[in-house]
């Protein structure tokens, strides 16, 4: 029984990582109407940046904060420079552009830092803490904590600040937003910046576990897609709940069903995507009906 709860917490930690990236995807999807296929690679790049900062002697949390800031700025710049010019074009064009970014950023990461795998430090110790008969890893709890904190901060931002309101309005109804004076373009850029920062959180949380390498986030992106779809692509709450649930389910499956150990969890993630498509495309939390062809 203790094993079960340990795996649940461990699954929540993975889930927190998926949830952060999934939320990033949803923010961009809601504001720009596009799936940013490069979200994972952006996160990887940010994590490598963090590694460089740490390598130069900066201590963990200042490096973490600085990375978030740089990632945010990068996201804003990306939207303004590359996405804005293709604003009116068919969605397919924009999506292919993000795929191009995926390839480009992946390559850039390899170019700058090389393909070797590196260790990435965790701010949390790997010692376990004992609750009743179970031993929970502090690192797992820490990851859950950081992920939930990021998500919580973001929801506070959306609910209670003027900018957050402007972003929500611009995402829901850009034309009307312009009429009240909202600079919709900059709201979109803000969305991309926030998403990039969230991705950086996800990357820095996963790197200590899977080790840092340029292809680190590809699997996470797959799980993030599955989580976002589980929750309903346009639902931020859904993405977070979906991510956490997915983490727990896949971890339990991996522990108790031998077929799903290790890399086969990726297949599990793929299966989730397919099942959602087949059974409930709007996701568990989706409100708007997915348009059938």
């Amino acid at each position, binding site marked *: 029984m203790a094993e079960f709860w340990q795996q649940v917490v461990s699954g929540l930690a993975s889930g927190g990582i998926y949830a952060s990236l999934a939320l990033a995807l949803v923010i961009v999807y809601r504001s720009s109407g596009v799936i940013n296929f490069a979200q994972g690679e952006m996160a990887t790049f940010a994590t490598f940046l963090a590694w460089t900062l740490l390598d130069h002697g900066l201590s963990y949390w200042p490096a973490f904060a600085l990375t978030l800031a740089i990632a945010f700025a990068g996201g804003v710049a990306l939207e303004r420079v590359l996405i804005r010019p293709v604003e009116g074009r068919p969605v397919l064009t924009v999506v292919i552009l993000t795929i191009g970014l995926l390839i480009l950023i992946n390559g850039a990461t390899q170019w700058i830092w090389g393909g070797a795998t590196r260790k990435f430090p965790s701010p949390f110790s790997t010692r376990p803490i004992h609750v009743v008969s179970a031993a929970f890893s502090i690192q797992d709890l820490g990851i859950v904590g950081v992920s939930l904190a990021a998500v919580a901060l973001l929801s506070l931002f959306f609910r209670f600040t003027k900018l957050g309101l402007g972003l929500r309005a611009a995402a829901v109804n850009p034309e009307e937003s312009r009429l009240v004076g909202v600079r919709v373009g900059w709201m979109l850029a803000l969305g991309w910046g926030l998403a990039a920062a969230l991705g950086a959180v996800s990357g820095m949380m996963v790197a200590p576990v899977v080790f840092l390498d340029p292809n680190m986030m590809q699997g996470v992106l797959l799980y993030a897609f599955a989580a976002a779809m589980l929750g309903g692509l346009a639902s931020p709450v859904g993405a977070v709940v979906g991510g956490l649930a997915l983490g727990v389910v896949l971890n339990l499956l991996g522990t108790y069903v031998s077929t799903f150990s290790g890399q086969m969890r990726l297949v599990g993630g*793929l299966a989730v*995507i397919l099942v959602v498509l087949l059974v409930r495309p709007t996701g568990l939390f989706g409100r708007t009906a997915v348009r*059938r062809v």
Partner: protein
Amino acid sequence: MSRRRLALNAAGFVVAAVVVAFLPRFISSYHALEWANVGIYFTALLGLNVLTGYSGQISLGHGAFMAIGGYTSAILIAHHGVRDVWTIPLAGLVAGGVGLAFGLPALRLRGFYLALATFGVAVAFPALVQKFDHFTGGSVGLPLTLHSNDWLYYLAWAIAGAGLLLGRLVLATPIGRAFRALRDSEVAAVSSGISPALYKTLAFGISSFYAGIAGALYAIAAAYVTPQTFPITLSLFLVVGLAVGGLGSLAGSVVGAILIQFLPPLAPHLGHAPPQVLEGAVLVAVMLLLPGGAAGLLRLVQSSRQS
């Protein structure tokens, strides 16, 4: 299509066929293998073009469908001693079948669900290969028969040519008309009784069939299959080739295929950048500046000549 266009196309095809047929005489054996690969990529791109150009959907996992074809071929050759050439159509059918099964859930919905799902296939496929290693040889892989580069070249281009003709043929049938109708206006097509889900799934099935065939050829050309033979970058570079060649242009896929084969080796000369940097930058630039790709450029040139 007007008679003149048809005649021009036929003439173009004949000229191209002649060039392809005589090229190996002028190039080394090593280059023949490179150009064989171009032919293989061309076949894969033909399929991707059917999918994207005519149904507006994109697949990020076509490398995995090539892998399905390649592994089907390899398993038949290595475990069952089937002669490699005969495995090619079988590989296509298996890949096509998987494509049909895959396509239907994703393609009956609007949006980029197919892209999401196929990305998942590309990322998850190596895990499947490892899992079923008694079939697939796991990371060690399966060895296949060696052939001369010239033989591979002619096989690849013969199949590419057949694929091109078949593609043109299909597009001339009611199926092709349905595809075009869907591309031009989904609303109008639906009101004419065309079921978008059905035809989009069919398009995906056709495109994965082509990918499977290309994958089988690829495996035969490499004379070995491992999970590394079909990495994720293959799926991604196919998209680059597709976009650069031009969406919806069958012949433009040649340009794309050439890019996929010859751009990566150039990369080290340009400041040691990994090929992804170049490929990615090219794709971003093409989408920003020239979404129609090479074919779009050609159309621009043609229309400016007419005015």
